[in-house]
Structure formats: C-alpha cells, structure tokens
C-alpha cells in the first residue's frame, strides 16, 4: 500500500508534464515573437520626427492609467462584495458541517495535547487569586452534610485515628478535675448497682464459703436435697394420677415467682 503511493505520484507527475508541454511551447513562441517585434513596437510607439506629445505611447500610457484606476476601483468593489458575501457563506458552510465530528475524526487530539506545555499553563495560573475568588460559604451552604455523612466510612476513619497519641496528649487530671463527681454519683442508683454486682459475683456464696460452719453447710445440703426430693415425689404422684398441669404451689400473699435458679430433678 505504501509502495503504491510513489507510483501513483509518478503517474500524476507525468500527466502534468504532458499537459505543461503546450503551455511551455506557447510561452517560448510568445517570448520569440515579443523579442522579434520589440524594435517594431518601439518605432510604432515612438515614431521619429513626430512631437512627443503626439506619440502613440502617450495614448497607451493614458489608457493604462485609466485601466489602473478602473482596476483599483473594481478591486475595492470586490473587497466590499467579499466582506459581505464571505461571512455569510462561511456561516452557511459551518452550519452544514459537524465540526465536532470532523475534529474528532481528522485531528489527532492526543498528539495535539502532547504538544501543549501544561506545566507552563499551570505556572501562569495564579492559584491564590483563584482561591480568593471562590465563595467557600456559598459552596458549604450547598453541601448536604447528611448525604456526605452517609457516604463516610466511619470505621475506616476510626481505623486511621491514632487513639493512643490522642490519649497521650490529653490532660486527664484536668478533665477529671472539671467533672462534678457528686452529681454523677447522685445520678447513679448505687443500691441497684450494688445489688447487680452482688448478684453477679454471688456474694452470699462467697460469704458462706469463707465463714460458714460445717453444720450450716450440712443443713443447706439437706434442705436442697429435700427440695429435690419434694419435686421428685410430686412429679411421680402427678404422673401416677395422670395430671397434665403443674402444681399450683405459690404461697398466699406472695408474688407468683421470685424468679432465678431452679433445681434439676431427674425422674
């Protein structure tokens, strides 16, 4: 494909050479005629023995002047005409053309951009001046903080926070000094809290283990085992009597149940 192009060019050049031959020949003939007729034309335009004012050359000069004036005038008219017509024509042409497509297809934008010295453009921009012109308040007013907050990955932010460093910089003594400890204590239900703690660590059991006598341990075991025996006996009797429902053993004047633990009874 690439080799075909020089061949085509050579053919075109040959055709043009053939076409130029008559023109060259005409030019040579004209030049020969002009060279031959030049003395004759000089005698005709400037005949000897005749007053110079009556020379035909003078008439020729006058005609040339008139022709030049006419040409100049016509040139002005043409320029005016062009000034009127060309914009309209160009406008019409542009309207019919899809310049964007043409540029996209014909222009190598990458190559064009590669030639642009972006560094030089940046250097010419006064960033401070640009920033100074920005109305940050207006921008902030237009931002929907809720949407921004929803899109925030709080976990990721938290992961990036170095809490140790923050804590190291905190003056905890100062913070604690500003806390109204009495008010905090007043708001805490200390009794309920103490009961919860005692419940959690089973303090009665600890007290029993540390101070309980052998006798009290034996009594406790006997009581527990007798309760288990009660349950077992009741269960057996209820099964013998084919009772479906559990016994109603709630004491009078007592809440339905105090909740809590239960003894597993194997039957």
């Amino acid at each position, binding site marked *: 494909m690439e080799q075909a192009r020089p061949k085509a060019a050579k053919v075109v050049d040959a055709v043009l050479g053939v076409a130029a031959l008559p023109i060259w020949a005409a030019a040579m003939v004209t030049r020969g005629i002009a060279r031959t007729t030049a003395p004759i034309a000089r005698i005709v335009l400037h005949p000897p023995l005749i007053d110079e004012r009556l020379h035909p050359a003078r008439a020729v000069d006058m005609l040339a002047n008139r022709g030049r004036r006419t040409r100049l005038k016509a040139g002005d008219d043409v320029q005016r005409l062009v000034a009127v017509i060309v914009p309209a024509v160009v406008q019409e042409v542009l309207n019919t053309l899809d310049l964007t497509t043409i540029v996209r297809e014909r222009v190598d934008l990458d190559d064009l951009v590669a030639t642009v010295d972006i560094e030089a453009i940046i250097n010419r921009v006064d960033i401070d001046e640009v920033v100074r012109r920005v109305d940050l308040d207006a921008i902030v007013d237009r931002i929907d903080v809720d949407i921004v907050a929803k899109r925030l990955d709080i976990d990721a932010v938290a992961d990036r926070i170095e809490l140790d460093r923050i804590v190291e910089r905190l003056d905890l003594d100062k913070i604690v000094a500003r806390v109204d400890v009495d008010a905090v204590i007043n708001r805490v239900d200390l009794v309920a809290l103490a009961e919860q703690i005692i419940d959690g660590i089973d303090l009665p059991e600890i007290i029993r283990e540390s101070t309980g006598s052998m006798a009290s341990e034996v009594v406790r075991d006997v009581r527990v085992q007798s309760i288990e025996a009660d349950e077992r006996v009741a269960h057996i009797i209820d099964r013998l009597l084919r009772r479906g429902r559990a016994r109603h*053993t709630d004491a009078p004047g007592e809440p339905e149940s*105090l909740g809590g633990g239960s003894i597993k009874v194997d039957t």
Partner: protein
Amino acid sequence: MTARIDPIPKEVRHFQGRRAGLITRALAAAIDLGVVAVAMAAIYLGFSAVLFLYRPSSFQPLTPSWELTVVVGYLVLTLYLTASWRSGGRTYGCHVMGLRVVDRIGQRLHVASAFLRAVLCGIFPIGLLWVAISRENRSIQDLIMRTSVIYDWDVRPRVRG
C-alpha cells in the same frame, strides 16, 4: 434506701415462698417429734429429780403408764407447736428445714389458729401425707385451717404480724 444481700443460694431462690413438699415437711415433723421426745425425757428426769429431792429414802424410778405418756406427750406437742407457730411461724424442725407456717393471707398464725392446727396435727398426723396428693401441696390440716407451709430459708420472716 438500703441494699440487702440475699443469703439464699441462687438455685433455690425460685422455691422461696412456695408451698413445701412432703419430704421436707416430713423431715421437719420428724425433727419436731425428736424435740418433743427430748422435752418428754427432760420432764421425766425433772419430775424424778424433784421426787428424789423431796423423798430421797423412798425414791423409786417412775414408771408412768403408756396412756399417761401419750397424753402428756400430746399436750407437750400441742403446746410446743402452738408456741412455735405463733411466735416465729416455725418450729425447730421447720427452722432446720427452712420452712414457715402462714395463714391464708400469708401472715403469721393467730394464736387460736395455731392452737387448733396443733391439735389437729396431734390427733391426725397422717394428714400430712395429703401433701403428696394435693395439687397445692397442702395437708389435711392445711385444708381445714386454710394454712400453708412454705419454703422460707431467710432468718427473717417473710411475713408480718
């Protein structure tokens, strides 16, 4: 506003305030019988000591009749039960087994109720077995007197009155 440590083990808190079963009550009754027996022995020894001090020369060991022993024993039992149920709602047997006797509204027995219940318990002790049959863990005496025997391990009574 005072906090109170519940001395009762977690695993049996659920049972506190509920009517006790047959085994626990029978054990308590057995202990009470032992108490009465000890009391009878103490009475016998005390009476013998008084007689010995009064007439040492003619002193002979007492040989009370069976009927007298039963009658005295019944009287001691009735007195003991009445006094115990009226005073703290529990006999020594109930105390050991963690039981308490309450009336129909969960309060300590009136002296008359305590006495009548004691009389019934002495006359018809086998009525205790009805606890095993009853859906509400009640003995015959409980049904007649409308009383209940509840698990109550706390030293302080759960009832007022």
